């Protein structure tokens, strides 16, 4: 008997299964299967919606076997999508605030009313030259490029993101080596898998990566996981290394040094692809500038990074480090590593974690190799939209402040402080699947800012579900989840490129049923209630901003097929798939379908091409026509940053590349090669940019002691390091509280504490703990575990969701809370946890758990890394038993202290201008790169 795992694709339109509940009676269920893309985490795995033909509703979601990354498999959050669709508390209609902001009173309005009102505001802002007062602040976007184009079409530098609570440090770490700011690891073919992350339960990208890591491990790869607490990944790893938080870079440099010392490094790769000449010139002018000098230079530079010193600094056994270096050294070119958040996101200078980690990739020649680590740009494919936008002329200083010229990217966590300082105001502020009051550090400062209508004129929350932030909005506009919206997504999940197509499955189902679904229809006609999608919303909103086209905006949203009317999603994606995705038109033709139909039926497409060693690709000599070859062999192009003379006059003639300085090729051993998108076109062991922009001491891979470095702490007393960021496999930030099955599995996040610490700190078993940060404290329960380094405590960030009214904005994860303040002193008390209640879903009466966690992020000050802008999440805290009057879930914060902390961290920066009076290196990536003139300070 052979069983298959998925319905064969050819039968998706008409598929029969047996009713699980009626079984063993054979009752047939007839389904239409429509593929889409999961909208929970960033991985964008494939899903297939099973639409019951009898009831016309979605019954379940399974994986999409046609998806090249997820390959038909999912994590818990994939099938849980059905909970989110059917959640009894979801927002079904557009709402407008009634009464004071934050009072929790709403009236239902029509989409037309919402569009008219918001469109008129934005039009006024743009016509009054206040375009940059319009801001779109997105959590994890889950789509590639759509909204950026919309903002560009408006001519507004209003893109704000969640990046600096997530990945800024890792980005700078990778970008400073290879110009590309994300790793793409080929785990499946690796022989050593080195994770400073918890990819087997979270990670960027959990399910696709977990599949391939376990595949690699099963095939014999050694898995090494670095994490101060025992993640599930650490548990599966062959080596779990739990160094002191913030010493990871030191440990990595010790390994790097061992590789050099042992002679187990790929000299030839380093000679060809690393800017060692610059390194030697800058750091060792005393040595002859020849490759043979490099080994000695590196051994000298890292002479202090011995295994014994690493044992002292990091707390990792020297013998184990030697063993690990030995393993790595035996597997040159097959070292797949990854860091995205974790230590990178936790520490001041955490960007050097990724930089030092990738140093090992470079030394082992494991860059873009089978089993190595590549750059995201090579394994991600973003198709060009059919229409573009206008150049952005004005620099938005609220997002790109002068103090952080190298930030990757927007300084989003500082927004409330900038508003307080009067650096600007917001006319119209969109939050999209973004919940800064809950997610960001210093949430009470956000609450203060968002409550103030002088600072934020109009707040529009685009969200599928209630959130703490949406509560403080003026408009709450319900936007669809994974099965209710159009998006394109592509991520560097493995060695290969793909695009995934998210679609509103009920709209597609209507189409399959022969209904006339045309450009005049809107997705909210097919979704539950009036739940819409951003794609059409932005088009219709843009139309209201510029109804007659006089602002020059409408043209970017106008249909070419039906001039004078808005472009529909079918036209948009139909053209994108037909024109911008290599091979897709041919594949569709072979299947006798249009490219759009092909994607609507399959949901994903593997873009053909060889993923390995792209930098070695030869460059056609015609590409260097008119270019100038510099002394390092880089061909520099006229009118690009690479040939710019630094004068103001010639600035406006420059053409800025999306990535890199626009130089097309580099000569290596006499051959023209594509190289890397860095100024040197090589891997930059020495980053001239960091030196030129004021950080010469960090131009090479370096350990920067963290703001929570253990030697600075009173560990004999009550000081400890708090790790507040880790994810668990079943929840996803602020997005999963509307799934009953996920919240049933996970709803508490006690403070992990080593038993020896618990004893020393006087924390009773089952006892409450008060954790005091720089700006306040929170009260949580302790969980003793041997799975954490003594001296470190940790609590997952997922829990601690709250709502302010018992019968409103309910979810499966939010407890009832009371918020009060006296001046800058804010208090949040938990009135009650989760409890059973009556609703349209009988399961609400079966809720058996009570804990909903503690909102710890409220008590964290903003701690932006002075270079990357990354929120350095780890906290230096005092830990002790709860005090008299403390109740579980209490949070107390003084926002005056928040401001002090903000100014303190701000003072660590080295502001622009950089060379030639610029605000930011022009070769650095940036959402919505403005015109070159805007770069001048």
């Amino acid at each position, binding site marked *: 008997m052979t069983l298959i*795992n998925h319905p064969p694709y050819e039968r998706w339109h008409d598929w029969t299964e047996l009713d699980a509940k009626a079984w*063993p009676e054979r009752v047939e269920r007839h389904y239409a299967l429509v593929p889409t893309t999961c909208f929970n985490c960033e991985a964008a795995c494939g899903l297939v919606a099973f639409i019951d033909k009898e009831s016309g509703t979605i019954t379940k979601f399974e994986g999409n076997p046609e998806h090249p990354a997820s390959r038909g498999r999912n994590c818990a959050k994939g099938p849980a999508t059905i909970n989110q669709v059917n959640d009894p508390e979801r927002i079904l209609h557009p709402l407008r605030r009634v009464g004071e902001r934050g009072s929790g009173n709403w009236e239902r309005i029509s989409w037309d009313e919402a569009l008219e009102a918001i469109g008129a505001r934005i039009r006024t802002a743009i016509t009054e030259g206040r375009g940059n007062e319009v801001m779109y602040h997105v959590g994890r976007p889950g789509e590639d490029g759509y909204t950026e184009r919309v903002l560009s079409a408006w001519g507004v530098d209003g893109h704000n993101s969640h990046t600096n609570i997530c990945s800024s440090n890792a980005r700078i770490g990778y970008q400073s080596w290879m110009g590309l700011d994300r790793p793409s690891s080929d785990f499946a073919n690796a022989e050593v898998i080195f994770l400073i992350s918890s990819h087997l339960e979270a990670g960027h990208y959990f399910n696709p990566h977990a599949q391939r890591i*376990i595949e690699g491990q099963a095939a014999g790869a050694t898995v090494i996981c670095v994490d101060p607490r025992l993640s599930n990944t650490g548990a599966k790893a062959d080596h779990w290394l739990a160094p002191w938080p913030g010493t990871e870079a030191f440990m990595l440099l010790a390994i790097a040094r061992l590789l050099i010392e042992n002679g187990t490094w790929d000299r030839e790769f380093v000679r060809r692809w690393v800017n060692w000449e610059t390194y030697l010139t800058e750091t060792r002018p005393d040595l002859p500038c020849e490759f043979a000098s490099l080994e000695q230079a590196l051994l000298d530079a890292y002479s202090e990074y011995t295994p014994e010193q690493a044992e002292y600094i990091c707390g990792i056994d020297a013998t184990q480090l030697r063993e690990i270096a030995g393993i790595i050294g035996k597997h040159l070119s097959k070292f797949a590593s990854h860091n995205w958040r974790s230590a990178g996101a936790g520490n001041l200078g955490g960007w050097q974690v990724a930089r030092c980690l990738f140093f090992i990739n470079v030394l082992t020649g494991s860059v873009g190799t089978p089993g190595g680590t590549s750059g995201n740009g090579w394994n991600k494919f973003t198709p060009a939209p059919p229409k573009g936008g206008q150049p952005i002329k004005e620099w938005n200083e609220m997002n790109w402040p002068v103090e952080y010229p190298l930030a990757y990217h927007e300084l989003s966590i500082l927004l409330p402080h900038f508003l307080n300082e009067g650096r600007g105001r917001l006319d119209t502020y969109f939050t999209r699947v973004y919940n800064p009051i809950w997610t960001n550090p210093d949430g009470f400062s956000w609450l203060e800012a968002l409550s103030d209508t002088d600072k934020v004129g109009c707040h529009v929350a685009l969200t599928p579900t209630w959130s703490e932030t949406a509560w403080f909005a003026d408009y709450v506009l319900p936007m669809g989840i994974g099965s209710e919206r159009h998006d394109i997504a592509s991520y560097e999940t493995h060695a290969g490129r793909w695009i995934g197509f998210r679609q509103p499955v009920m709209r597609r189902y209507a189409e399959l049923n022969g209904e006339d679904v045309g450009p005049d229809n809107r997705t909210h006609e097919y979704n539950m209630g009036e739940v819409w999608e951003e794609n059409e919303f932005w088009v219709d909103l843009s139309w209201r901003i510029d109804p007659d086209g006089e602002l020059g905006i409408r043209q970017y949203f106008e249909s070419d097929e039906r001039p004078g009317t808005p472009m529909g999603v079918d036209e948009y994606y139909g053209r994108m798939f037909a024109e911008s995705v290599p091979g897709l038109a041919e594949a569709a033709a072979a299947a006798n379908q249009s490219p759009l139909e092909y994607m609507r039926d399959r949901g994903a497409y593997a873009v053909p091409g060889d993923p390995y060693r792209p930098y070695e690709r030869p460059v056609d000599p015609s590409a260097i026509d008119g270019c100038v070859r510099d002394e390092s062999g880089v061909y520099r192009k006229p009118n690009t940053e690479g040939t710019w003379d630094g004068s103001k006059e010639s600035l406006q003639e420059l053409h800025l590349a999306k990535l890199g300085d626009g130089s097309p090729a580099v000569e290596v051993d006499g051959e023209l090669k594509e190289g890397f998108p860095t100024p040197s076109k090589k891997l930059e062991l020495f980053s001239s940019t960091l030196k030129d922009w004021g950080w010469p001491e960090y131009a090479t891979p370096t350990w920067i002691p963290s703001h929570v470095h253990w030697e600075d702490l009173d560990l004999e007393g009550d000081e400890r390091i708090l790790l507040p960021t880790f994810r668990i496999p079943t929840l996803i930030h602020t997005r999963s509280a509307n799934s009953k099955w996920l919240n049933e599995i*996970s709803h508490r996040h006690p403070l992990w504490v080593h038993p020896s610490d618990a004893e020393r700190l006087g924390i009773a078993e089952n006892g409450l703990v008060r954790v005091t940060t720089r700006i306040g404290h929170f009260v949580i329960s302790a969980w003793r575990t041997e799975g954490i380094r003594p001296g470190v405590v940790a609590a997952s960030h997922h829990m601690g969701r709250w709502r302010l009214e018992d019968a409103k904005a309910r979810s499966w994860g939010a407890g009832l809370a009371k918020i009060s303040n006296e001046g800058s002193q804010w208090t949040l008390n938990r009135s009650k946890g989760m409890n059973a209640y009556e609703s349209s879903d009988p399961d609400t009466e079966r809720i058996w758990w009570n804990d909903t966690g503690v909102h710890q992020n409220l008590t964290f000050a903003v701690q932006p890394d002075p270079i990357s802008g990354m929120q350095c999440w780890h906290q230096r805290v005092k830990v002790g038993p709860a005090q008299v009057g403390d109740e579980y879930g209490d949070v107390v914060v003084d926002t005056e202290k928040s401001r002090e902390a903000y100014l303190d961290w701000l003072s660590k920066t080295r502001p622009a201008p950089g060379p030639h009076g610029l605000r930011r290196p022009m070769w650095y990536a940036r959402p919505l790169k403005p015109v070159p003139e805007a770069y001048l300070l």
Partner: protein
Amino acid sequence: MTRLGFVLASDSCIGCHACTVACKSEHDVPLGVNRTWVKYVETGSFPNTGRSFTVMRCNQCEDAPCVTICPTSALHKASNGVVDFDDSRCIGCKACMNACPYDALYINPATNTAHKCNFCNHRVEVGLEPACVVVCPTHAIITGDLDDPTSEISKIVARDKVSVRAPEQGTNPKVFYRGVDQAALDPTRSRIADDGMIWADTTPDHPTISPVMAEHSGNGVIGRTAYTTSHPMTWKSKVSGYLVTKAIAAGVMGIAALLVVLGHGGSSSAVGILPAVVAGLFIAITGVLLIADLKQPKRFLYILTKSNTDSWLVRGAWILGAFAAVTGLWGLLDLLGAEGAYPWLALPQVVLAAGVAGYTAFLFGQCEGRDLWQTPLLLPTLLAQAVVAGGSTYGVLDLVIDVPDQSAVRIATLGGLGALTLLIGTELVSHGSRSVELATLEMTRGAYARRFWAGGVALGLLAPIVILATPAGSTSVGTSLAGACALVGLFAYEDAYVRAGQSVPLS
């Protein structure tokens, strides 16, 4: 033949719970119950700490105790080897939940019937893998035909080191674990610590090794259960009560028969109509308790109309029915003045009374998940309890009626009490399996210690023995007091025994 099985590859499992959720989705499993879940167990100490992930579910036993005990064959073995169930036959007796040594079954609160993993047999029927297999990111759940030597699963079972849960139960599971930590596979080797689990609340329904078990069972607990699901106790006071009420019914008729044998058959209604009425009443209460304990009480007749004759629930129902009939006849004889027939009826009445009292030993014996109940001493214990219950009831009745040979009753009761003391004592000092020892610990030193010692032993055994063995025992007040003590004590003992039997975690 096809024999479908699972390999649960703990070495590949990443503990992501996708299988749990995919299963909930496929079967619309309500909150609070699970067909499959992932258990986390932590072992070791920093920095050599481990956490293992083990998928827990129905073991698709070749010799499935749940199928044997199911009175209505709602649980059955399908032709492909899957232990499947038919909702429409289930009466919700929960016997399967005690028969299963793996905590695989639960009562679905939406249907009030017993559910479990059925291998997604509705999917298998149309050629699809179970939902958990399809979703698993790391191919850690492998399914296939164990009778096909070329199948992936057969090769793994043949070549790799695999284990099964609780092999000592002799159920022959078709679910094999690869790369599994023994601390995770054996639920008595780890416990939920007092500060709870890693990211879920711990409720009283989360079974775990109790502090008493952990403290007094040597170095057996080597891990910490960081995540598991709840499995509420299924048989409680109603079942303890049923044991007492039927012991009274059986015992009363037994004593009545004894009095007949001693020649008091014609002497009074105390041997005729009265015991029949009392036994009838208590057998009726027994029936009410049994039906009230069903999750589908309206379906109680399915026991007779859809019988699985292997189940001692069914056989018990027959015995109870026959006993009730003969008891009715016994009463009728008195009304008809046909006392002369009693000597003839005494033997069948005693045999049926013994059946009523003792069949539970066989029923409990079919509860493979409850090792405490597997003892061969259970049958004599139940019989002795019936004697004590019957004698005690006569003792109480002595207040209102004239019992013809109270000393015979007293001697019988004392005999029963003595036997019971001996049996319980033997049970306590003998060494059973680890499960039995843990259950015994819980009964004698843990949550049920008061019920056991103060109720079962002091009130139920010592007090009546002391009273009956002294001159006070020959007075009506004395016999009735001793009887009342013995009956109340009996309930306390049964309650401790029934609950302690279920206190050892199975998953």
